[in-house]
């Protein structure tokens, strides 16, 4: 159930990418897909009653290793979020240039792109 909800959010993003004509909406669809996927990867690493993988002074190492959530997906998502920001900057720069050239965000109006 909880996985299905995350996949549904992903599907909404994919629908925006496939069906929308406005280029800003397409970029937003990509962002929604990215958020949903990051959330899904973090969901996979959760342990029931788990604590954050940070050690403090009073933590016992054995109980910590048995109770902590999986740190590896978190490390992957850490990088994935940053790459998403770079991707977004690139997409928005392209969208701004296209707007200056064609005067619209509508992708069906950009006919010069056809070969």
């Amino acid at each position: 159930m909880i996985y299905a909800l995350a996949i549904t959010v992903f599907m909404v993003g994919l629908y925006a990418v496939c069906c929308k004509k406005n280029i800003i909406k397409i970029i937003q669809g990509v962002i929604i897909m990215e958020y949903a996927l990051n959330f899904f990867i973090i969901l996979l690493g959760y342990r029931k009653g788990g604590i954050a993988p940070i050690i403090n002074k009073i933590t016992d190492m054995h109980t910590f290793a048995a109770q902590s959530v999986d740190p590896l997906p978190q490390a992957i998502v850490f990088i994935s979020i940053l790459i998403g920001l770079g991707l977004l900057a690139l997409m928005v720069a392209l969208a701004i240039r296209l707007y200056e050239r064609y005067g619209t965000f509508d992708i069906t109006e950009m006919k010069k792109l056809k070969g």
Partner: protein
Amino acid sequence: MISITIEIFLIFMLIGALIAVEITDLLYSVISIGAIGFFSSIGFLLLGAPDIAIIQMVVETLSLIILVRATIRKDIHTISGDREFFGLLSTVAILFFFFLYIFKATQTYPVFGNPVMSRISDSASNIYLAKGLKQTGSPDIVSAIVFNYRFLDVLGANAVIFAAFLGALAILRQKAKKKQ
């Protein structure tokens, strides 16, 4: 209990996503994107990932600024025109089958609350958790993985980010080189 809370946050994210996709005003939809990021950040906090929650908050604020920069001060006229009904129907049908396929695939994944590392005792995650403090000196295991164990991966990812920002700058540069 935690799964119900996470489900509520996911439903909020779904509502935000639907509003962002379907609303006609671009500025409102950009703000809805910010709302989705905010809810996912709280979800990360509940799932035991405070580092990710902080970085999600920062990145989401930055991406909101970039998107507002793209949409503001443009005369935003809503794009109208009748959609092709058959095209929309076929797209939705394909997306539905894609959803069923992924949902079937997630049945083979570990159930929520019981990750893979609890089944395999000598997995990488367990070794990092048990020996991370001694080997790297960092009490935060995620930082230990990102900046010590897997630093070469992070270096490659940084190259990607750097290339993306350089590309954005090159596209946005106003003046070309002076002609000789």
